[in-house]
């Protein structure tokens, strides 16, 4: 019997761009709702950040601190009683910062549960594998497409948030204290790295557990725990400064360690902070980013290894 197989698609070797576009659309089509949720999240958060800066909270707070620290005016750290606008602004910035640092576990939960584990459970992963997509390629595409979207969105938000922080610092809207110190050093490319770590931890967990729900929970927990463990070491691995020059610290505050009783206060009176100069920002961030990315690569490699072990 003849075995002539008719090719009904276009040219036998489709152009690489067409292939890439087709595969991108395929992954997006499968995870349409997640994509829209992510886009909505980025857009809404970006809008909130703009509103914080240009809206009533930001302008009112800037007004309170207008002209402070110059001759004839009060010091910037001694705020008048009832400066509610300033407190409101600080509170909002604090909330947004919490949101930005804690959505990596949410990404991990989605990656573990919906992206990978659900398809392993309901068999659509096997459907792809038996339809000419090798398991390695399948997982690579499944991770690459979200990685690009997550990096772009998180990068945009980080850039915006840093801009907001810098503006707030310039206008003396932030108060000295360990929280503000943390705010200065924690936000940047490292947040993007944590999000990517969440993605690969999710994939790894999906191959270790049975079912989407355990994968969801365990990957979120693992991601959160990782960031919680690394957090205190961010600045501790760097040597402390010994000079007492004012103005070298984050947001123009001092770079001296606080006195013992001052450190007990969330907000320090004398504008002292944990002893790292502002110039250490990029070394701290890049070290953390590099470390977290290495973890992400290890988790991703482990996911691929586990998958190859069970499927030829």
């Amino acid at each position, binding site marked *: *019997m*003849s*075995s*002539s*197989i*008719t*090719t*009904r*698609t276009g040219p*036998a*070797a*489709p152009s690489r761009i067409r*292939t890439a576009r*087709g*595969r991108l*659309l*395929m992954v997006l*089509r*499968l995870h*349409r*709702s997640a994509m829209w949720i992510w886009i909505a999240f980025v857009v809404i958060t970006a809008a909130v950040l703009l509103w914080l800066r240009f809206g009533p909270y930001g302008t009112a707070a800037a007004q309170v601190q207008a002209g402070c620290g110059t001759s004839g005016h009060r010091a910037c750290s001694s705020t008048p009683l009832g400066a509610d606008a300033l407190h409101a602004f600080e509170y909002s910035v604090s909330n947004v910062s919490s949101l930005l640092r804690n959505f990596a576990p949410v990404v991990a939960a989605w990656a573990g549960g919906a992206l990978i584990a659900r398809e392993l459970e*309901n*068999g*659509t992963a*096997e*459907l*792809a*594998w*038996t*339809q*000419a*997509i*090798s398991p390695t*390629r399948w997982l690579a595409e499944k991770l690459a497409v979200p990685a690009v979207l997550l990096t772009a969105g998180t990068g945009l938000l980080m850039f915006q948030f840093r801009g907001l922080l810098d503006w707030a610092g310039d206008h003396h809207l932030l108060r000295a204290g360990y929280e503000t110190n943390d705010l200065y050093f924690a936000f940047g490319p490292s947040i993007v790295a944590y999000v990517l770590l969440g993605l690969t931890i999710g994939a790894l967990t999906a191959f270790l557990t049975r079912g989407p729900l355990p994968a969801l929970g365990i990957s979120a927990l693992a991601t959160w725990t990782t960031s919680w463990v690394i957090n205190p070491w961010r600045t501790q691995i760097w040597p402390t400064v010994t000079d007492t020059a004012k103005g070298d610290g984050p947001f123009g505050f001092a770079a001296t360690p606080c006195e013992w009783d001052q450190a007990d206060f969330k907000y320090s009176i004398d504008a002292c902070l944990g002893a790292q100069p502002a110039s250490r920002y990029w070394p701290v961030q890049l070290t953390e980013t590099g470390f977290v990315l290495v973890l992400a690569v290890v988790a991703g490699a482990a996911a691929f290894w586990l998958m190859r072990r*069970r*499927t*030829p």
Partner: protein
Amino acid sequence: MTDSAAALEATGLSMSYSRRKEAVLVDCSFRLPQGRICALAGPNGAGKSTLLRLAAGLLRPSSGTLTVLGQTPAEARSRIAYVAQSKPLPPHLSVTDTLRHGAELNRPSGRWDQQAAERIAYGDGGLKPAEKIRSLSGGQRTRIALALAFGKRAELMLLDEPMADLDPLARRQLTGALMSAATEHGTTIVMSSHVIAELEGSCDFLLLVAGGRLRLGGDIEEVMAAHTLLTGTSGTSVLDTGGHTVIDQRPAGRGCTALVRPHGEPAGDWLAERPTQEEVVLAHLRNTEAPPLLTETATPRSLQRAQRARSQENAA
């Protein structure tokens, strides 16, 4: 016959999911030539699904070898179509999107027949293109799953209980479509079922698996021709085997009836009849000790060579 690769060739194939549990497949060896329509029969839990998944490249065997179309299952991925028992499909896609998904998944191999897929999916006119997969009935899902398999234009189709959810009309249509593909393209088709009657008439090759072991393998005609149903007349309560292999023997009135593989003429006064496919299969399922039968076409090449070597030794 030229030395063309078999559609499936297994030697000593064994599979167990974990060291503690019992093996699901034990030492299976067989050869399925290309172009056959094979019934993979056996009771539930016999290992049929596992065998199909091994052939589809979704599992690694614990021991033994399995080649598909002359290659390893992973290498032959683009030439095989597999439909799992659960007919997995992305639940939130529409029918059109699912077919497009199939086209996209097959882009690397460059062969997708959109018309064939649509013919199967929309064949009976009951499906609307915009319907979501999760709102489809079992039989409709089977249609879409088979549509993806047909669109792939594979050389080997591995179908796990394909007819399970189908109504009689759909069953006739889809079996007809499978036969049509086999006629036109010489596609090898392996269909598993635990209802042997379903596959009669369409299949010309049989692989019977029970308890993880292969009991029967070969062209159905040859396998049936190798068995005879003997009915013993009154007075003979024990079958005088005379060198026949007794598969199953049961009392019948004052005598007995036995399904045997005869070697020569049966001694004594026996009525010899041709058994039905169902009788042969049931006899082998009842008697777990019966020696397995592999016709020559169904014996893997390596075993054939070993057998020939052994018989040469015996002759020398």
